[in-house]
Every structure is written in structure tokens, then in C-alpha cells.
């Protein structure tokens, strides 16, 4: 799965996610990626989220909208909302996952509960900053 989130100069947020699914999948199985509010979500003034991981668990936990809701109704920061979701119910259900997110102020946050996630953002000079492992 791949994904991206962005805030543009006009203050508009967007999220995109794309996937090939699971190796050896059958029966037209679909995960969280194309489900708005599960693997992908964006709302101006709030946040944009793209998720990756065990799709069935991410679907049941409606990950992206949960992060959004915690910020909208619980006044949590982007960092706290992402951390609490990724390391909360999902982990309890055995779901390995990661999210990339950006808030209305342009703050970027990555959360993962597994050993690695291919990820990247731009540093303060606009240069690519990439990471793979949870220890990066």
C-alpha cells in the first residue's frame, strides 16, 4: 500500500491511498484503502490521513475517521490522536499498521505499531526526509 497526505498553500488538505491488496487473496477481498474514513480521509481545518496495515482491522476500527474525530471532538493533537488510535484498539485486536497524517497547521505525523513503515516527508528546507524502520 502507498499513500500521501498534503496541505497546500491555500490551506486545503487532501489524502490519497492506493494498494494491490494481499498476496494470494481470494473472493474479491477489499481492505481499508478505498474506504473513506478507514484508510483514507481528509477534512479542512482538521486533518488528512492515509493508513496502511492489516486492512480488516483497520476497517473495523475506521482508523482515519477515528483520528479525525479525536481531534474534532476531543481536542486531541494530531500526534496524540494518531498515537492513541494506532496503539490502542487496533493493537488490542492484533492489527499491525501505520498512518501518515497532516493537520490544518501543516504539522506532519507518522505513527506505527510495527517494526517498519516506508515513509517520508519534507524537511524545513523542503528536502526529502525518508525513513523505513521504527527506530529511524
Amino acid at each position, binding site marked *: 500500500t502507498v499513500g500521501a497526505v498534503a496541505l497546500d498553500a491555500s490551506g*486545503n488538505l487532501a*489524502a490519497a491511498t492506493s494498494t494491490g491488496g*494481499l498476496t494470494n487473496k481470494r473472493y474479491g477481498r477489499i481492505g481499508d484503502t478505498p474506504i473513506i474514513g478507514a484508510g483514507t480521509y481528509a477534512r479542512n481545518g482538521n486533518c488528512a490521513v492515509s493508513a496502511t496495515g492489516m486492512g480488516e482491522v483497520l476497517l473495523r476500527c475506521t482508523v482515519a475517521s477515528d483520528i479525525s474525530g479525536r481531534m474534532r471532538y476531543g481536542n486531541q493533537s494530531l500526534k496524540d490522536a494518531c498515537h492513541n488510535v494506532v496503539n490502542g484498539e487496533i493493537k488490542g485486536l492484533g492489527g499491525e499498521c501505520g498512518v501518515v497524517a497532516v493537520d490544518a497547521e501543516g504539522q506532519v505525523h507518522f505513527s506505527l505499531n510495527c517494526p517498519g513503515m516506508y*515513509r517520508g516527508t519534507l524537511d524545513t528546507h523542503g528536502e526529502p526526509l525518508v525513513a523505513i524502520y521504527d527506530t529511524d
Partner: protein
Amino acid sequence: MAQFSLAIHGGAGTIEKHRMKADLEQAYRHALADALLAGKNILMAGGSSVDAVVAAVVSMEDNPLFNAGRGSVLTHDEMVEMDAAVMNGKDLNAGALCGVRHIKNPIVLARDIMTGSSHVMLSGDGAEKFAFNEAGHVYTEQDYFFTERRYDQLLDAKSTGRAALSESTFPDDKKHG
């Protein structure tokens, strides 16, 4: 407020440093940087966040390293079946698709569904009909998506009856979705 911001991911899971070959790790790092630059160039030129996230995702869909687009994993029937979604925070418009097999860049089709239809999500054959008949997409043969690496992964998964990458013997691909 920052002028603009961008973040990407290329999948998560059990990616083990001690099993990752240096050249493969470098390839991933370069591919991630390329995707970031694709999105950054749009944002720097005053483009929209929607265009930026689509450009970043297209860059990764075109790279066989990632499980999306060209590098999609294979189903039990040795086909690719891809899903994608995009959402615009400005107006809460969204476009999504699932189970497409002949679309080179599913994220572009997701944007076309968002902007060129009155629907949010289209599936399988219907999504492809919309793509070819109304959105100008070109039919892409399954051969485009086939790589030896993904075929070997499928054989590995079939040998143990698995439908996920969690127990894969491939060091960079013990990840999910």
C-alpha cells in the same frame, strides 16, 4: 501556518533491518524521495493538495518496489486487483475504486471518479467501464503488472496457504497491504 506540507508512506509491517540488503534499502529510499519530489513540485508551483497527493502516489504506483499499481501483489488467480481512494478536504469530495485489473494508475481513476462522476466509489468491471468510456484511461494488460518477484511471493504464499505477507520469506515484504 506552514506554506505547504507533504507526507507519504509506502506500506508498513515487519520490515527487518538485518535482512534488508543495502542496495534494496537504497532503492526504497530513492523511490520515496522521488515520490516526495513529485508532490513537492506541485505544491511549490502553487498546485492543490489533491494534485500533490495524486502525483506522489502515481510515482509509487509506477515503481515495482511498492504494492500498488505496477508492483501490485498477485491474487490466488495470479492477477492483480487494485484499490484506491482520494479525498479533498476542501469540500469533502471523494473518489474511490476497488477490484480493478487493467488500470495503470488507480489513484488517477479515483480522482476522475471524484471529479467526473456523481458517485464516490465504483467497483471492478463498472469502475473500468467508467475509466475507459468516460475518463479516457487506456486498457492496461495484466502483463504490465507482472514481476518475477511478485510471482515468487505468490508461490511462497500458496505453498503454505497464506493470504498475507506476514510470514513471507522476502525481507522487504513482510508487510501488510
